[in-house]
């Protein structure tokens, strides 16, 4: 029995490694989602000169002198309390909703953000294993395809609620996401013109040369457009018009409560993480650092380099997450017509111009 299991595992090594990688990814992403909520609350508190969550204490850990109260003041246990609360609260389903879509929408909202992470190369090699779930040749197209499905969760939530505010939120979201997808897709074309490949692993290899070969320095306009479009795609302030508390109450999730609401909330943060991971891959050199020899893929024997690469990638993602949060508490919300104006009249022409300029420069370089 055990030997046949061993045979099975040895014969399906790829499968086993894939399952292990997926499990490890979930084990990293889920706490990241929970703790980015905490980071959001703490950073907003800092910006607004408040203290933020500082009360939740664990029974035994809280009693350790100095360290226990310190962790409590940091709010380190707050995500546990928040999670417990969303499980235990009454899951209220209003009478007028369309039941099937009301159940489906929160799940659909959460899934695309995770699917996007499948093609992100979050490290070079650990041992002989390439640190990416699916090494697709059309990696970036896959990402945009999945990102474009993200709108269904919100639109269906707005439709399912069958009342006015969520409906307006859903309508706004569909128009906003489609508009900014175009700008986002066009903004990265110059990056791939430079790299000459759609595979995200190749994009990182291209940037591994040194700090100045990072795409943010080669394509600053592309990065600016991508960053703003990422804010619009993840429904973050200054572009959170689909939920817009002051006019639409809560927008698409007005009628949701308890765990279903929490799923939307987690979906938003998971989408932020995958958008940050995309930006790190495309513009910030992915897992590479330009010193200590960390800019080359790890050799099979150098396990610690492989692990360090994963750490570097996560650290870069965390920095971008902080920027997401910071911007939310610094800028006021745009008006809807301003949002559309910015997307269609500014960013799309700018992205097109950027493509043409990059093409001309590349042509001139190859001729000269």
């Amino acid at each position, binding site marked *: 029995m055990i030997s046949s299991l061993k045979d099975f595992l040895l014969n399906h090594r790829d499968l086993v490694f894939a399952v292990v990688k997926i499990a490890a990814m979930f084990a990293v992403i889920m706490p990241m989602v929970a703790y980015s909520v905490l980071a959001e609350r703490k950073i907003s508190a800092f910006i607004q000169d408040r203290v933020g969550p500082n009360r939740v204490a664990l029974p035994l850990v809280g009693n350790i002198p100095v360290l226990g109260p310190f962790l409590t003041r940091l709010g380190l246990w707050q995500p546990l309390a928040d999670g417990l609360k969303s499980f235990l609260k009454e899951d209220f389903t209003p009478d007028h909703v369309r039941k099937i879509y009301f159940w489906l929408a929160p799940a659909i909202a959460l899934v695309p953000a995770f699917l996007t992470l499948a093609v992100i190369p979050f490290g070079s090699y650990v041992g002989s294993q390439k640190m990416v779930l699916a090494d697709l040749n*059309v990696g970036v197209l896959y990402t945009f395809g999945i990102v*474009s*499905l993200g709108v269904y969760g919100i639109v*269906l939530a707005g439709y399912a609620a069958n009342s006015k505010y969520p409906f307006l939120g859903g309508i706004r979201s569909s128009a906003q996401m489609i508009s900014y997808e175009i700008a986002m897709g066009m903004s990265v074309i110059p990056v791939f013109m430079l790299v000459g490949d759609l595979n995200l692993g190749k994009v990182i290899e291209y940037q591994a040369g040194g700090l100045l070969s990072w795409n943010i320095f080669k394509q600053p306009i592309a990065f600016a457009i991508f960053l703003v479009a990422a804010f619009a795609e993840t429904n973050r302030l200054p572009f959170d018009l689909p939920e817009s508390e002051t006019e639409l109450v809560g927008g698409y999730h007005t009628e949701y409560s308890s765990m279903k609401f929490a799923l939307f909330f987690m979906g938003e943060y998971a989408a932020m993480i995958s958008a940050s991971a995309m930006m790190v891959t495309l513009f910030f050199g992915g897992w590479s650092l330009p010193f200590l020899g960390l800019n080359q893929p790890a050799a099979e024997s150098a396990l610690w380099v492989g692990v360090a690469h994963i750490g570097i990638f996560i650290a870069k993602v965390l920095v971008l997450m902080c920027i997401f949060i910071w911007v939310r508490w610094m800028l006021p919300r745009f008006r809807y017509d301003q949002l559309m104006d910015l997307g269609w009249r500014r960013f799309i022409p700018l992205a097109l111009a950027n493509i043409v300029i990059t093409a001309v420069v590349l042509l001139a370089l190859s001729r000269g």
Partner: protein
Amino acid sequence: MTDLLFYIFSALAILCGLMVVANPFSRNPVTSAMFLVLTIVSLAGLFVLLHAYFIAAVQILVYAGAVMVLFLFVIMLLDIRAEERRRMKLFGIITGLGSVGGLACLLIRTIWNSGVGEGLNPTLEGETRLLGKTLFTQYLLPFEVVSILLLVAMVGVILLSKKELK
């Protein structure tokens, strides 16, 4: 494994395609649209099995991600109850079945005559560069004609929607 996935995706595509037009449980246009999205996604799965990753990604990106969202957008702005009340007419059923039957006969005859292939040689496997070269050399004229057609359509839409264009 590949065979099994082929049958799963084909069954899903056919089933969801049927549910788009003849859903026995609901006549809600939004439900039809969502089943159409599922059909498109299953078709993308079939493209992946054929090693056409690029087509699969574009299928999801363009059809499921953009076109169908616009469909939903329009459907949600319409009066759905009127559509749910509408009854099918005998004339519509007869002409509809007739035209679908004719097309199906043509398709089946073509497939029947072409015989079973020998499995494909996946040279275009995710190779977007090759695809681009083919499009811009061998099929340049059709490609440009289609582009101009799209441009004309766009200009037409703007002209129709802006009635007081100066």
